[in-house]
């Protein structure tokens, strides 16, 4: 089949298949409608995009504000905590100081108690001396009484009584010696005049 034949046949077919006629007015109207629809769609899309953009900016701004507020709140909280920590530290220092003072006082008190206990445990040396004095005085007195009553050494006995009274005046032996001397004086008046004078010096 030649090209010419094909061409001829195609033209025949084309003539038979006439396209559906479209009125110019309808076409124009459709094109304008499509155009306006597209414009409207673009406008809506632009508006939507703008809205989305504005929303995003708004959300970002809100987020930023929230973040800022959060930071401010946290800063305030941190400051407050720092202040509370400083107060607690001061209180702790004061308490520590008081505890130290109390411990020191307790140590002093313990030391004092210890010393007092130690002091109380010790025997008074004056008492010992007094006791020894009394024993010595008692011994001398006993010897003097023996001399006077048993050995008949009256003069020596009187001297011993006087010695007891002279050396240990505040002892019971001295009191007894004074009594003995007084008895001797009463019994033998005039014999001990000289001694009496001496005795009166010690009484």
């Amino acid at each position: 089949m030649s090209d010419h034949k094909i061409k001829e046949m195609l033209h025949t077919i084309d003539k038979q298949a006439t396209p559906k006629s479209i009125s110019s007015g309808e076409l124009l109207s459709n094109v304008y409608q499509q155009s306006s629809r597209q414009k409207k769609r673009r406008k809506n899309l632009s508006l939507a995009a703008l809205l989305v953009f504005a929303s995003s900016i708004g959300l970002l701004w809100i987020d930023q504000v929230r973040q800022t507020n959060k930071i401010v709140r946290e800063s305030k909280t941190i400051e407050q905590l720092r202040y509370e920590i400083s107060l607690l530290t001061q209180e702790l220092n004061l308490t520590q100081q008081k505890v130290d003072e109390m411990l020191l006082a307790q140590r002093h008190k313990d030391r004092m108690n210890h010393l007092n206990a130690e002091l109380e445990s010790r025997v008074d040396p004056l008492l010992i001396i007094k006791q020894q004095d009394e024993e010595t005085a008692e011994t001398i007195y006993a010897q003097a009484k023996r001399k006077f009553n048993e050995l008949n050494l009256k003069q020596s006995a009187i001297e011993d009584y006087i010695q007891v009274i002279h050396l240990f005046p505040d002892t019971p032996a001295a009191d007894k010696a004074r009594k003995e001397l007084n008895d001797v004086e009463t019994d033998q008046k005039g014999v001990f005049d000289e001694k009496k004078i001496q005795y009166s010096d010690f009484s």
Partner: protein
Amino acid sequence: MYQAYVTTLTHRLLGWSDETEDVVQEVFFSVHKHLKKFRHESSLKTWITTITINKCRSYHRRQKIKETLMAGLRQNARQQNHQLQNTDKHEQLKIMIQKLKPKYREVIIMRYLEEMELDQIETVTGLSKSLINVRLHRGKKKLKEVLDDGVD
């Protein structure tokens, strides 16, 4: 002014389909939209022809996707083959033109119905002359195969 021309060309390029009206509307909408961009490097008719060809190509692409999705191609092809055996040569040619791949149909329509020279076809399609010749040759071969079989 160009409405009749665009309508006829579209009708032919779509294989005398009933969907012409929509594509014509698309063509004029595109013309209206891009008229400011027309640089007068070619005639207005050539420019509109190019737009028409491109819109028809887009239509074919959409149709192809649609047909693939519907998966009814084989059934249609079988029916068409059956029809070919029982119709006259004009009808057979029409069905064959409709069956041809759009890229072959496009150059055959422009060459034999629009009676364009190769230079003009080259301008409006953006294809090289050699490619146009190859497509013309292959298209004709496919048509001849059917028509000659019918004759035998």
